Every structure is written in C-alpha cells, then in structure tokens.
C-alpha cells in the first residue's frame, strides 16, 4: 500500500504528485488491498494527464483514516482484476462501455448503462423467464430486471440499467459555473444535501477556502435530515410491501414532516440550492432553530411509535427475517457499501472512518450490523434514524456563532485533482474533480453508493422466492439516476 499516495478526505493535490506505478504492481496492490477488511475501492477510472491516459484508483483506507490514490498506464487492454477481486467488476464494465477499454478475462464484460439485449439465460423445460421494466408498475424510476426462475424460485436476477442516463459527468466539464452545484445535486435527487456538501468541499479544496463551523454544522444537519427522511420513507414502503398498512401510512406522512424541516431551513424539501462552496446560503436563526427543535420534539416520538409497531408485529418479522440474505463474505467480495454493507456485518461508515466537515467534531452513533437479510437492512435504518435524530438535536442546540458563508475568492487550482467522500444516506458517495491547466473542470467522477450496491440486490435474490422481490428491492432502495448519471 506504500506505493499509493496518502490523502486526506476533501483535499486536492497536483496531478503530478500522484504516483505512476507499473501496471503489474498497481494491479497486485489493488487485488491485495480489497481482500483486507479495512480497504475498499472507491473509484476506478481513466484519467487524462497531458496527452496520456492513465487508470486511476482511489481506495478508502479505514485503518489509517485516509484515502489512497495512484495511477498506472494500463493501455487499452489489460488483464481484468475481477476474477481475483470481484469488487472491480462493475468498474471494469464501465471502462469497457465508456472508454472502449478491454479488461480481458472479465467473466461478463458488457455495458452497464445501455441494454444490449444479451442477458444471462437458463435452459430447460421448467425454466421460466420474467422480464420487468423499464417502466415499472409504481411511481419509480426505470430499469429492467430479468429473472430466471424455476417455479417461484429465482436462480438468477440480472439488472439492466442506463435508462436514466442523461450525461451528468459530461455536462460538468468546462468552466466552474452556477450550473456546477445544481448538476451535482441532481445526480440523485434524493441525495442532494450529501452531494452538495461533497461537491462544495471539492471546490473549497481546489480554492483553499475554509468554511465556518456554523456552516458545516448546518450542512451536517441537512445531510442527517435527508437520511432520516429517506430511511423513514423506505421503512414505510417496506411495511407497505408486506401489507402492514398502519406503519406504511404513518411513515408516508412522517417522511414528509422531515422533508418539511429541510424546507424550513432552505425552502426546498430536498435541500436544494442551499449548500454551496463557501458555506450555506441560509442561516438557521435562533427563532428558526427553536421552531425546528419543537417540530422534532413532536414528530420523533410519532415516528418511533409507528416503527416500533411494525417491528413488534410477528407477521412482519416473519416476512423480513432470513429473506434476501447477503452474507458478509459476499458483501465484502462484491464491495457493498453503506446501509446494505453494514446490514451484512461490514464495519464501514465514512462519518467515522474519514470524517470531514463537522463530522470531525461529532458524528451520529454507528448502528450495529446484522446478518444481511431484509430485517437487518430494516434494523440498520431504524437505528440510524434515531442516532441521526439525536445528532440533529444536539447540533441544533449547539450551533457555533458566526457567519454561514465565506466568499470563495481564489480560482480553481490548476492541473489538480480533488476528492470528496461523503456518507450519504445510502452509503458512500465519492466525488472527484480534475482541473486542467486553465483551472477549468477537465473531468468529474461521481460514484454513487448504488454503483457498488446494485449487484448486491441481484445476489439477495438468488434462491429467493420471486414474490419476495419487492421487499428485497425496498430494503436496498437503490438509485437508478445516481447510478446512470
């Protein structure tokens, strides 16, 4: 690991400072590291430096609380890492699709953002294939699912995405402008606060801007409110999928209460247009703070009551328990992150591992892990909700004095790369920005937690009843747009 450069989260370095390794060393170090429980791959993409194209790898090193990064000239063809380190499989498919690169020896090299009509199939008289989507029955995003079943039992689920692709990363290239933040915020619309915080940190790192403690507190409050609202909605939806209607309807309403708290802070229920380079646009004045605390005091017990009702119901537990299991070994090898990773017993949470902003001072308690079934994913969310609510309350009561905005005066540092990893509500959100010799944005990478986790859903369905698909799906609730970009 020593051959990789050690970096702080939310920092920037000159491109020339990144070590360039011989491909064999680069490959072997990566394979060895993802076998270690404290290291995981955060991004793996081609990086253009002057006239050469390199492969760039970014790892999270939890033991040393840092990021690690290195480059290597791989050429267009290179021996795939996937057979030895499956966590790379989706990244390599992306390289193949977007950059015409060929990681040879990859077991299933095909596009990830465009259906090519070539699906894994099974043969035999009793086999039946179920195809769902891209347009689903509910009000949700498009994606295509192929189930290979015998009777009710699913042998394989293939998930084919890309329907939401709209070119986010490409649109981010060029001058840093008033478009930059809105584009990051709308990569996945339900993760706007985390995305805007990460994106702002990129700009702050590239301009050497220090933001006030009060601003970083407000950002953290918004990220945690986002987490609570989404987890609440998902737990309600899980209840709905097993026809436990009381919790489903209570949570549907309560989720809205938390969105309204975000709107109380910034006018937008998804927290848009508030977090920006230099701090935040809106302060939480004492009166507003009191109002928010009062609102929390009223709604939190209602939420606890609605959720406890569900977790006390044997019919619900029966459906959740031992359904859609992803073992810790599988989870680690395919590189699950976030709530799904924690539910499979992996200890990972960027708020503790690579804290940035206000999380360096304080962070919500980590939720205990589980054994990887739907119940574990539900319980992790339950515990995270109340840890976040406690954190929100304490943070609001202890807002630092001072202004919430520091002007960004310097231009973006040239020929540099900046990294921001944020624990969004689904998990690890990795954002990377590369600048050129003029200080314009040469390249942006967004690795949404869903990018790591979609394959986890496919694994959860193996040998599962097809009728359990809805609850497995809801327990992950992954983002199509965040993946497709």
């Amino acid at each position, binding site marked *: 690991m020593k051959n990789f450069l050690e970096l702080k989260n939310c920092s920037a370095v000159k491109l020339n400072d990144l070590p360039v390794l011989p491909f064999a060393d680069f490959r072997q170090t990566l394979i060895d590291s993802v076998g270690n429980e404290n290291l995981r791959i955060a991004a793996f993409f081609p990086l253009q430096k002057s006239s050469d194209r390199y492969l760039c790898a970014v790892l999270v090193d939890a033991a040393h609380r840092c990021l690690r990064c290195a480059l290597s000239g791989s050429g267009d063809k290179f021996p795939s890492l996937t057979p030895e380190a499956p966590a790379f499989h989706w990244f390599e498919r992306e390289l193949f699709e977007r950059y015409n690169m060929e990681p040879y020896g990859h077991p299933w090299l095909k596009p990830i*953002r*465009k*259906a090519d009509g070539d699906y894994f199939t099974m043969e035999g008289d009793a086999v039946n294939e179920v195809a769902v989507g*891209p*347009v689903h*029955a*509910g*009000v*949700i*995003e*498009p994606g295509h699912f192929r189930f290979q079943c015998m009777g009710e039992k699913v042998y394989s689920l293939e998930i084919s995405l*890309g*329907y*939401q*692709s*709209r*070119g*986010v990363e*490409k*649109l981010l290239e060029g001058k840093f*402008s*008033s*478009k930059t933040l*809105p*584009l990051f915020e*709308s*990569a*996945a*619309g*339900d993760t*706007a606060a985390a995305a805007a915080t990460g994106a702002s940190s990129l700009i702050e790192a590239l301009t050497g801007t220090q933001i006030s403690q009060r601003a970083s507190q407000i950002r953290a409050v918004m990220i945690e409110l986002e987490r609570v609202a989404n987890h609440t*909605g998902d737990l309600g939806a899980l209840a709905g999928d097993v026809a436990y209607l*009381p919790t489903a*309807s*209570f949570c*549907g*309403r309560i*989720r*809205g209460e938390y969105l*309204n708290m975000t*709107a*109380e*802070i*910034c*006018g*937008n*229920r*998804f927290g*848009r*247009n508030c977090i920006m380079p230099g701090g935040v646009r*809106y302060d939480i004045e004492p009166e507003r703070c009191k109002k928010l605390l009062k609102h929390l005091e009223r709604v939190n017990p*209602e939420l606890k*009551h*609605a959720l406890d*009702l569900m977790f*006390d119901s044997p019919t619900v537990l029966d459906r959740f328990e031992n359904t859609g299991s992803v073992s810790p070994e599988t989870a680690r090898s395919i590189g699950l992150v976030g709530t799904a990773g924690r539910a499979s017993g992996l200890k990972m949470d960027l708020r503790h591992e690579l804290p940035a902003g206000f999380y360096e001072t304080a962070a919500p308690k980590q939720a205990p892990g589980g054994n990887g079934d739907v119940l574990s994913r539900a319980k992790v969310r339950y515990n995270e909700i109340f840890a976040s609510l406690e954190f929100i309350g304490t943070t609001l009561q202890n807002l630092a004095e001072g202004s919430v905005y520091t002007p960004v005066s310097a231009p973006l540092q040239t020929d540099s790369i900046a990294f921001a990893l944020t624990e969004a509500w689904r998990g690890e959100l990795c954002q990377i920005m590369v600048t050129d010799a003029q200080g314009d944005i040469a390249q942006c990478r967004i690795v949404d937690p869903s990018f790591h986790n979609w394959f986890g859903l496919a694994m959860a369905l193996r040998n599962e009843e097809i009728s359990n698909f809805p609850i497995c799906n809801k327990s992950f609730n992954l*983002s*199509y*747009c965040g993946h*497709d970009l």
Partner: protein
Amino acid sequence: MLKAFMARLRQGYRTGTFPSTPPVLPDRFAGRPEVFPEKVSDEARSICPVEAISENGRIDLGRCIFCGKCAKVCPEGIRFTDEYRLGAFSHDALTVPGVEPWQESSNPELRKLCGKSFKIRQVSAGGCAACELDFNVLNTLAWDIGRFGIQVVASPRHADALLVTGPVSDNMRLALEKSYNAMPKPSFVIAGGACAISGGLYREGTTAGGVESVLPVDMYVPGCPPHPAVMLEALLRLIAYR
C-alpha cells in the same frame, strides 16, 4: 390488531386541509416570481444556470429551477413570491410577466370525459427522481389525492393521462412512446418539473430536451421538483375540480 387500532387513534387524522384553505408553505419557499423586465440586469441573466431569463428580461418558468440566484443579484428586477399556482396549460402562462396561469381555462373535453375520475400513469424518463418522490407524496395520507377521484394506475391502458417527469433520456424515449401509444385515446399528457418541460439542467445532455419534442403536452407543472401543493393545485385545475 388492538395495538394497530390504538396506534391509529394515537397518530390521529392527518390529511391536510388544502384545497379548502391555502397550503402551508415554508417562508423560504420560492413560488412564482414577480419580474420587472426593464430592471432585470445582465448579471442576473448570465448567472442563471438554465438560461431561463430572456434578452428582454422575462423568466421562462418552464426552465427555471427556482434556485433564486437571479433574485439575489438583482433584487430590484426579480422577487420570488409564495404564489404556488404555477401549473400552466400554455407556454404563454409559463412566461413571467405574462398570462397568469390560473386565469386560463382547462380543456373542456377532458372534464367531459373524465367526470370525477381521473387516472394517471406516471412515466419517469431521465431526471433525478425528485419529481417522482414529491408526486408520490400526493398518495400519502397527508395529501390523499384519492379524495378528488385522482388515482395513480399501473398500466397505461387504464390511464387518462400520462405524467412524464425527466428530460426524456435517449434510452427512455422508446419506452415512453410505447407507454403513450398503449393509452386509450383521447389521452392527455402532463409534463411535471423543469426537466420534462424544457430539459431543465439536462437540455444539452443525452436527452430529448423535454417531453414536447416527443409527445403533445396538455399541462406544464414548473418546479425542480414541483412542490406537492403546486402539483396538486395544477391537477385540480386540469380536471376542473370544484
């Protein structure tokens, strides 16, 4: 069972009072702006992330993502109000200053056809899913659109209207067209959110730049995403609910 019953009592009746009283909106909510074209500065025009402000100082709400940046640099020309009646039947009512959208009358054919039952099939076509999420909210007990005879259906064959969100990504275009063609005619199309109306932030991405280049649109609902109150008010006006 008893527990669930007690829980219902404790959680209480929670459906909002809109439309008989105006919706409760946060004080920082950005609704329809007040615009004085001759005072709109060049700086406001150039800071707009979606080029929503025209040369003559008018704002196209079909593009606007309500980020408020223009009003910040040019408070004398642009001021956002809490006017939430944004849904428009025509482009004219999307431009500010211009026709006030609530002055327009809805399609009488639709009212005759649907009476008090209006079925919507939602199709998400690109975009960031925020529009879908805030439309879904109308189905929760806080808003309960069932009260107005509006129902979200799973099949386009059961639908009177298609609610399209997103800029229509190239990869969703075919599926969107197929969904539309599967609907019984006459059918109606609602473009929900800046992306669906104009392509929004993704006008220059791998998209069609809005629904209109693919399907005829009967109603436009601005916002990024439209607040549930904005969407509900627009739908009620569309079906001429009284």
